[in-house]
């Protein structure tokens, strides 16, 4: 019996102690006519040997193409130590640290995580994680609505340069609470949002706006003018919600430092997806959403928070704190319903950040930037390919093609290349545009491979058998 340790003798002893004749008796409170369950549609159990073989086959059916896709998930190098330690049984198979004294490992690690995130974001406080970046933005919006007592509107300005899936997800989650997300169009020249446009939308909405969302780098990879928008928001009692790529924050101005260097500057809430910091792409997850805020918003924070305290002997120790915000105490009045979060991925991410260090992360981020510049240079040298926007980018760039983006990407796939993300669906105005991404993983060779393949594809050359890496 896989995973069941009972012997016949023990079963007998246990039933005797219970005073039952068979295990079937233990289910006698269930209405008998409901107890006729057939699981015919579920296959028979397998041995580990058989499953391992099956899963290896399945894994092999997935692509091993050279990845120039980003759009919210990024292929970064993850040091081997990260997941080897993360999957140690003591981290892997523990529950939420409700018994603090028996969970100091997870608790201290999470406190360190919070510290790292506040440092990286230059914010005051971080929680212990939310599900992912998209749902994290929803929580940030809910938090802003609770936190901005000066605004009654429940209206949030969301530029269309914010990841479209994030916008859709946020909508799903906040709509039940009568919160409105209002689009702000971007400048078709720069690929970024302008303060003028934001002002205009604010006025159009009646002038009372609860918060404005700003993504840096934005979905097009472009860098937004974060300082002036942050200052304007604060002047108008609007909270600023930053959505950022944490890897980029090693080299870009972090949300806590947006705006003029005055007392009240900086984003009020910073959120995003922690995936770039140690989580494999893994077909979409598990990643995690991070959430940081200024001190004055801490009691509006959803999710778990770890605090440092002392034990009876005055020794330092760590506990779950401010639990009165949470659903298991506050029930219907909680800041959120979140309970289970993405703890193990946070564990990995913390170890990742510790191993990389500030300098390591900076160098990695700078390499992403430099590689993307090389890629864009190589690709835009090909006739029929040009950069769509003028703004500087971090590690993603929108390229404008003269042929069908869909077809080009499909042909690149035949060359074993994941060539980028087709933008026409969410941004019809961009036509045949693709979003390409280059991390530190893409070598000069890889970039040349892409350039050569794109050249051939655009020239209509057929794929040679030996080039067809996979389909």
């Amino acid at each position, binding site marked *: *019996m*896989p*995973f*069941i*340790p009972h012997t016949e003798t023990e079963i007998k002893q*246990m039933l005797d102690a219970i005073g039952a004749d068979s295990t079937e008796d*233990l*289910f006698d409170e269930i*209405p008998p006519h409901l107890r006729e369950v057939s*699981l015919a549609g579920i296959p*028979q159990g397998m041995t580990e040997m058989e*499953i391992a073989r099956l899963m290896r086959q*399945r*894994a092999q*059916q*997935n692509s*091993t193409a050279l990845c120039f896709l980003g759009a919210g998930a990024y292929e970064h190098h993850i040091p081997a130590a990260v997941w080897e330690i993360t*999957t140690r049984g*003591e981290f*892997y198979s*523990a*529950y939420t640290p409700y018994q*603090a004294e028996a*969970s100091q*490992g997870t608790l201290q690690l999470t406190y*360190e995580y919070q510290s790292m995130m*506040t*440092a990286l974001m230059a914010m*005051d406080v971080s929680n212990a*994680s939310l599900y992912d*970046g*998209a749902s994290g933005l929803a929580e940030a919006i809910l938090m802003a609505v609770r936190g901005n007592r000066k605004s009654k509107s429940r209206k949030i300005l969301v530029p269309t340069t914010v990841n479209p899936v994030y916008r859709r*997800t946020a909508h*799903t*989650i906040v709509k*039940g609470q009568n919160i409105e997300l209002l689009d702000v169009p971007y400048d078709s020249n720069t690929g970024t949002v302008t303060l003028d446009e934001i002002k205009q939308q604010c006025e159009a909405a009646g002038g009372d706006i609860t918060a404005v969302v700003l993504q840096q780098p934005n979905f097009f990879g472009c860098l937004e003018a974060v300082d002036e928008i942050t200052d304007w928001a604060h002047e108008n009692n609007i909270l600023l919600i930053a959505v950022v790529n944490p890897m980029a924050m*090693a080299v870009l101005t972090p949300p806590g430092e947006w705006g003029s260097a005055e007392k009240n500057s900086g984003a009020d809430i910073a959120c995003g*997806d922690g995936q770039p910091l140690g989580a*494999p792409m893994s*077909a*979409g*997850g*598990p990643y995690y959403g991070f959430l940081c805020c200024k001190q004055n918003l*801490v009691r509006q924070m959803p999710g778990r*928070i770890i605090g440092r305290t002392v*034990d009876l002997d005055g020794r330092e*120790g760590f506990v779950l704190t401010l639990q009165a915000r949470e*659903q*298991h105490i*506050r*029930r*219907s009045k909680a800041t*959120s319903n979140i309970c289970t979060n993405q703890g*193990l991925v*946070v564990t990995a991410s913390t170890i990742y950040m510790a191993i990389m260090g*500030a300098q*390591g*992360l*900076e160098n990695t981020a700078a390499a992403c930037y430099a590689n993307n510049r090389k890629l864009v240079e190589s690709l835009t040298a090909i006739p029929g390919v040009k950069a769509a926007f003028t703004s500087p980018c971090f590690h993603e760039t929108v390229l404008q093609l003269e042929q069908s983006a869909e077809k080009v990407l499909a042909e690149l796939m035949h060359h074993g290349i994941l060539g980028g993300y087709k933008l026409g669906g969410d941004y019809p105005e961009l036509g045949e545009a693709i979003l390409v991404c280059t991390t530190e993983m893409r070598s000069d060779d890889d970039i040349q491979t892409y350039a050569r393949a794109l050249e051939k594809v655009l020239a209509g050359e057929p794929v040679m058998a030996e080039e067809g890496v996979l*389909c």
Partner: protein
Amino acid sequence: MLIFEHSAEGRRGAPQSPAEKAPLDGIPQNLLRQSSAGLPEVSELQAVRHYTRLSKKNFSIDTEFYPLGSCTMKYNPRACNSLAMLPGFLNTHPLTPDAQQQGFLACMYELQEMLCEVTGMAAFSLAPMAGAQGEFAGVAMIEAYHRARGDHERREILVPDAAHGTNPATAVMCGFSVREIPTLDNGDVDLDALKQAVGPQTAGLMLTNPSTLGVFERNIEAIATVVHEAGGLLYYDGANLNAILGKIRPGDMGFDVIHSNLHKTFSTPHGGGGPGSGAVGVAERLQPYLPLPVVAKEDERYRYLTSEDRPESIGRLSAFMGNPGVLLRAYVYMRFLGREGMVRVAEFATLNANYMMAEAKRRGFTLAIENRRASHEFIITLKNEAREFHVSAMDFAKRLLDLGYHAPTTYFPLLVPECLLIEPTETEAKEALDGFMDALEQIKHEAETNPQLLHDAPQTLPVKRLDEVRAAKQLDLAYEPCRRQG
């Protein structure tokens, strides 16, 4: 010692990043970070040693018996981890065309199908990333269903008072108000109170069965009838399916929508707090509203359904596909179990719980509910011990830690004073159950003879009892030099 306290400026021990920083020219100065990123600078050995040592300060299934009620701390098969982490899965970008991730999609499709079969629902979405998000999806679908029918007055969700805190919190997030239904002493929902409560304002009822009191709701069919007749829908909080797997199916009980915590019943690891999966299943009539993505099979090929296929979907809950790595682990686990294995889970989880309950009674403990079968879990109340010897359930819990056992869930459900909610799961051997009961009995004896031992517990762990009040008052949520300097 914090990792930051091992840090030294100028240290570069790791062979993990380019040694030189590429120039960032082209980015305007004001957009460039001026301060350091503030992460610790330690060598790889220091990091490995620090986190390996930290890990040793955790209790976990792999090291201790962990009978935490309502949490289903069962063995997490190691193969589930290693097979979910095959490079072919880890290196798949989520936006890879469907045709190039057929291996992964096949697993997801089959997982949906198996969940339908074992719960008796018509369709599943794997999108929700934990139980609470599954609840959100479920209640949002209830809302969408009523709205689609033009039934705009149903703004109330009913929740038994024994329910998990996520239930009322979820209802509110979805814009509903919450009404609590009382529970009888025998653990069943107060059917009369329920009848009083339902009405044209009723959107639905959220029910956990077996309830968090560890008993099966015997009137489930009557409850379903009451709610359905009032025009409401039935939500099944299936966080814990362990006790009913292959024994009874929520769909057959009359539920319209359910979520299942794959990180409990299907043994994906809890990871010290997550990630999980709260896959959500529905009866036929709710299928159009399922959150995306969902995987479909057409002509032996698998593909993600989009909002074009499902225009009435409540939408997306995450940027991609929920938590695929967790889903893969659950998939592997279900293939391990197979049809026969599922039933065995219920049988042995229930056998273990009932055995421990019988033993608890034999050893003189008071059960929260008498004369009922335990499901996968049961409750001891220490109210007598508290009164007589001034020891609390928390004292028992901490003393158990000293004896090498993780404590059961304490103070939940809120209805039972000084309670311990004990869930052994099916993967524990009799030897572990007996050892735990011996420890509990010993502590009871200590409570009577030397209660100070309990108050002072734990003594053998890295720290003694921690000052939670101070933690909440003198907030220290990040290492000082890391906090925003402004």
